[in-house]
């Protein structure tokens, strides 16, 4: 049913149809309205066989889900920014224990300085946690990814936490028409969670053993293997979703106008829509520009990126985060994927801490690269004159 809803609701509604058993969260802007929506559903008795717990911190919220997931419950939480970082110790632990917790991160900048506005610094910090990480372009995509996230995370070949990243404010607060799932539809798509191992008195198991050097490494290999296996499981589920809904759902990446392109722009998240618009108008002017939207960040789609850029010489990476002391995280990954291929790679950090990224800025970046006006490597774009206090 098509309805104009806020991003928050598109997530909460989708979570409800997935029949979660335990939801635990702590409020943080710009995530709060997701769990407020779920709390209201809980208060109205709309969530069957479900316990909703408002924890005293994100750390405890995630810990509650560790216990619940290990007991065989389907779990959900949402957070962002400082909350995600506070959760990080637990989420890393949950990945090691192979618990398929699904969370939504409403991307927000990290302090200091304090900022409640959007960038991707928070989720990028979780790059090496062993959790699946995907970015959505709009609220329909966020809505659609929730049931798929459970199906992927709970697959016995995977069993990993799954983090859906949606841009804070830009998506969370936006009203968009969203084709909302019906309960019958999700009941058909998503089977109940059948854990391969769970805490039970009848068959007592030990979870969270400690591992001395003679066995620790094997568990980390298993974690890597699970993350690698997730690639194929995700592809299959994405394909199944496309067939199930009749939507053009794409896969780990979406490749648009790249076949004959001299230059391709790589984006992730909500800015993709703006960049697509720019790319399409530049093509109307005869400029051979293409777009690659990165959906899956972990596992990183190396092969797909390499294949998509086979005949493209110039690559621009636009991203909302920085690995300080090097460059943007996505650019680092793209360079790794293209190792041995001689491409010109230009990476730009834009829109940090909610800084507006106007259309003209994207046009300027693309024009400058096409005309050879900027060097390869890393740049900040859209920064004003600023006298540093230190030194």
């Amino acid at each position, binding site marked *: 049913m098509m309805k104009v809803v806020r991003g928050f609701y598109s997530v909460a509604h989708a979570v409800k149809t997935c029949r979660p*058993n*335990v939801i*635990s969260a702590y409020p943080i802007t710009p995530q709060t309205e997701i769990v407020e929506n779920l709390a209201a559903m809980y208060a109205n008795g709309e969530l069957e*066989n*479900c*316990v909703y*717990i408002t*924890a*005293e*911190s994100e*750390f*405890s*919220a995630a*810990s*509650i*889900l*560790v*216990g*619940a*997931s*290990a*007991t*065989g*419950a389907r779990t959900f939480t949402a957070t962002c920014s400082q909350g995600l970082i506070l959760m990080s*110790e*637990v989420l890393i*632990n949950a990945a090691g*224990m192979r618990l398929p917790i699904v969370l939504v991160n409403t991307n927000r900048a990290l302090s200091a300085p304090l900022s409640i506005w959007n960038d991707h610094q928070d989720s990028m910090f979780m790059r090496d946690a062993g959790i699946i990480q995907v970015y959505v372009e709009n609220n329909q995509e966020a809505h659609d990814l929730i049931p798929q996230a459970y199906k992927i995370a709970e697959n016995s070949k995977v069993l990993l936490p799954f983090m859906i990243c949606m841009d804070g404010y830009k998506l969370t607060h936006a009203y968009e028409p969203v084709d909302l799932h019906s309960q019958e539809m999700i009941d058909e798509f998503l089977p109940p969670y059948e854990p391969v191992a769970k*805490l*039970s*008195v*009848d068959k*007592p*198991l*030990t*979870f*969270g*053993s*400690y*591992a*001395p050097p003679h*066995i620790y490494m094997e568990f980390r290999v298993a974690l890597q293997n699970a993350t690698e296996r997730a690639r194929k499981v995700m592809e299959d589920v994405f394909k199944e979703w496309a067939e199930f809904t009749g939507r053009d759902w794409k896969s780990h990446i979406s490749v648009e106008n790249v076949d004959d392109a001299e230059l391709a722009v790589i984006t992730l998240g909500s800015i993709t829509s703006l960049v697509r618009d720019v790319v399409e108008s530049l093509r109307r002017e005869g400029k051979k520009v293409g777009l690659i939207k990165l959906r899956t960040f972990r596992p990183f789609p190396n092969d797909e990126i390499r294949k998509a850029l086979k005949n493209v010489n110039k690559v621009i990476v636009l991203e909302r985060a920085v690995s300080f002391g090097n460059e943007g995280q996505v650019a680092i990954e793209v360079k790794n994927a293209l190792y041995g291929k001689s491409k010109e790679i230009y990476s730009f950090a834009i829109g940090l801490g909610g800084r507006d990224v106007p259309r003209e800025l994207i046009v300027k970046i693309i024009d400058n690269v096409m005309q050879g006006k900027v060097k390869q490597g890393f740049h900040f774009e859209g920064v004003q004159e600023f006298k540093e206090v230190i030194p």
Partner: protein
Amino acid sequence: MRYFSSGHGACPGCGLPIAVKNVLQALDGKCFVVNSTGCLEIISSQYGKSAWGVPYIHSLFENAAPVAAGIEAALRALGRKDEGHVVVFAGDGATADIGFGCLSGVMDRNHDIIYICLDNEAYQNTGHQQSGLTPMGEATTTTPVGKLMPGKLGKKKDMVSIAVAHGIPYVATSSSAFPADIRRKVKRALEFEGTKYIQIHSPCVTGWGVDGKGGIIAAKLAVETGLYPLVEFEYGKLTRVRKIKDRKPVEEYLKIQRRFRHLFKHPMGKQIIEELQRIADENARKYGLDVEKK
């Protein structure tokens, strides 16, 4: 399989297995165990060598309480509540220091769990560093004795009063030197719905500096001197205490343990012993520990 098998790695004379076995026995093994990082976890949960015959989970150092809350919530949501009780075993550091905020949240929301604090009065697993439950005057590696310092200066954190202040249904202290007391209190705790907090004094032979049999002797003296009163609160009201006949002076407890021995030589030792005696006397007054002489 036994609830907690032999072959675990605890030191001879360790108080932890005594406490754990008696708790599990009182629960007839019908329970889910959540264990914080620490001594108990390390001696019992090595991969491939688990000592646990009941479902067991260890997540992190500071989150045992919310993990237990999550298990309890899941059991309710999945209609499995009758399967067993959820019981936490956490050390004193995990309880009173690093996991304090998490535990407060759980007690505040009154999740239906039994929280057992295994109180050996320092971070013993990592070699005897002070925690919030280390008593005054104890020499630890982070509160060492020196020319200026006589060991820990601060008092033992009053976790019992803090637990009581949360308004949870049942709060008690017990001791590995009194196994029947542990079993009785766990059974009593089962009669309440909500968070139950039981703090069990548990000797550490290496940390306390006693031999294999000395731990239990010391733990018994802790009770008999009034330094570790065995008490019970139901809904905030003191309902029962273990009375002491001829309460012993604290020196008898202190002098047999290496962790306190310096107090008998250090310039500040006398003052600290006096303060510890004052604490024991105050415990006796507050809880009515002394048997009245007729």
